[in-house]
């Protein structure tokens, strides 16, 4: 029972803060709401017996990345969003129609699903969420995709540096 309550709180937090992130007009408040959402998701990871992923979620997303957002907001100023001419406004009815259809479809699917573990308690999968298990998985079984991902990230970082450099040189040339 306690687990269901905790899940309810965390899930509601994730959705509520996520919605607030999109709806707040002040970028600063939106960033704070984003922290709340990311922390709720970290809590959900913890409930899934994945403490390592939960803590990494906090370190990487909830602290490092949002700090970068705040840093940018600090330099650009906390200006509230201005509403521009919304060209899609006449089509809003279709958007709501899509929402209604989605809710209807989701309730039918959830009501009739026969997926294993959907209604009954899931089976115990053993230790897959600890730091040791994840490390072993990365360096044993999934080493090629893991290294490929780090290569892709390295290329992306180098490209970002190069682009920024060109922009700086362009400014000085003016």
């Amino acid at each position, binding site marked *: 029972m306690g687990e269901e309550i905790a899940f309810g709180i965390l899930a509601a937090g994730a959705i509520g803060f996520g919605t607030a992130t999109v709806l707040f007009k*002040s970028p*600063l408040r939106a960033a704070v709401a984003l922290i709340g959402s990311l922390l709720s998701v970290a809590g959900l990871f913890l409930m899934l017996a994945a403490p390592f992923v939960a803590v*990494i979620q906090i370190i990487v997303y909830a*602290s490092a990345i949002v700090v970068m957002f705040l840093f940018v907001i*600090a330099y650009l100023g906390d200006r509230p969003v201005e509403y521009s001419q919304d060209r899609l406004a006449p089509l809003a009815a279709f958007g709501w129609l899509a929402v209604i259809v989605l809710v209807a479809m989701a309730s039918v699917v959830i009501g009739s699903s026969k997926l294993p573990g959907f209604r009954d308690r899931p089976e115990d999968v053993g230790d897959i969420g600890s730091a040791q298990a994840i490390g072993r998985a990365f360096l044993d079984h999934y080493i090629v995709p893991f290294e490929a991902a780090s290569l892709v990230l390295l290329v992306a970082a180098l490209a970002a540096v190069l682009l920024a450099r060109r922009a700086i040189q362009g400014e000085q040339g003016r």
Partner: protein
Amino acid sequence: MSEPVWVQIVKAIIIFFVVITVFAYLVLIERRTLGRFQARPGPNRAGPAGFWQPLADVIKLIFKEDFVPKTADRFIYTIAPVIAVAAAVTGIALIPFGDPITIGGTEIKLVGADIGVGLLLLFALSGIGFYGLILGGWASGSKYSTLGSARTAAQLVSYEVAMGLSVVGVIVLSQSLNLTEIVDAQRETVWYVLFQPVGFLIFLIAMVAEVNRAPFDLPEAEGELVAGYHTEYGGLKFAMFQTAEYINLLVVSALAATLFLGGFAGPWMSGVWWLALKMAVLIFGFIWLRATMPRLRYDQLMKFGWKVLLPIATLNLLVTIIVVGVAFQNS
């Protein structure tokens, strides 16, 4: 979670009160010691040797007006100090301070929360605690506060990386992220400061930056920014920022002692006293540093973090991994 709930609650209360008391007297000790360094007595009027000074400070701060600036974002301005204190106090709970003891048939671990990924969680908490500073400075609606919080954000990102890399060496040696296991691993070998002297040095430097103390106290440089992120704060909210800062100092020095100096392990005395002794030596070093070193310039701080500390930390880690790997193959 083998301990009954009441044991955990009692433990939490004891740890909390001990930490708050230590914090109060840490401030007094720092002011007195700084006074001696600067050839003046320091606060010595309230009680013998200034013994009642913390109490007097608290009473004064309680009776201050609870002021919110007109330009402030009221909600964030109010919760920011709470975030800072909550993260700092939670961090203390992860530090082990002794071997398990048995009282009335119940085995009690002498640590607030024995968590498998405790070391990582401490880093996560320090990241969350920084939000108190950043958001507080931002929500104050003052230019000095905003500059202070922008500096905090930049400094956090720069030094957290080097700090993390310096700690990975210890993780590689002890094969664990659990602080109690790291202490036990050092009991079997030697203090990791002997294996990781460079890592220890980097950790010490980065940790001064992490707790915003001189010579890295750029976020609150009084010569340029009045008081940085807490310029607009007064009364108990200001006191909460101070609490967070000093408890963070306790947490990081306890962490340094645990990771590199054998933590609570030691002969003759019980674990608490060993840990307290090691922390006291480290904290005295920090006070000494504050009294001795002038503040860095901001660009020096960033250059030092990215161009000196980070490459050395990376190199140190690389060498450690290679040596440990070779040693494992031979054994």
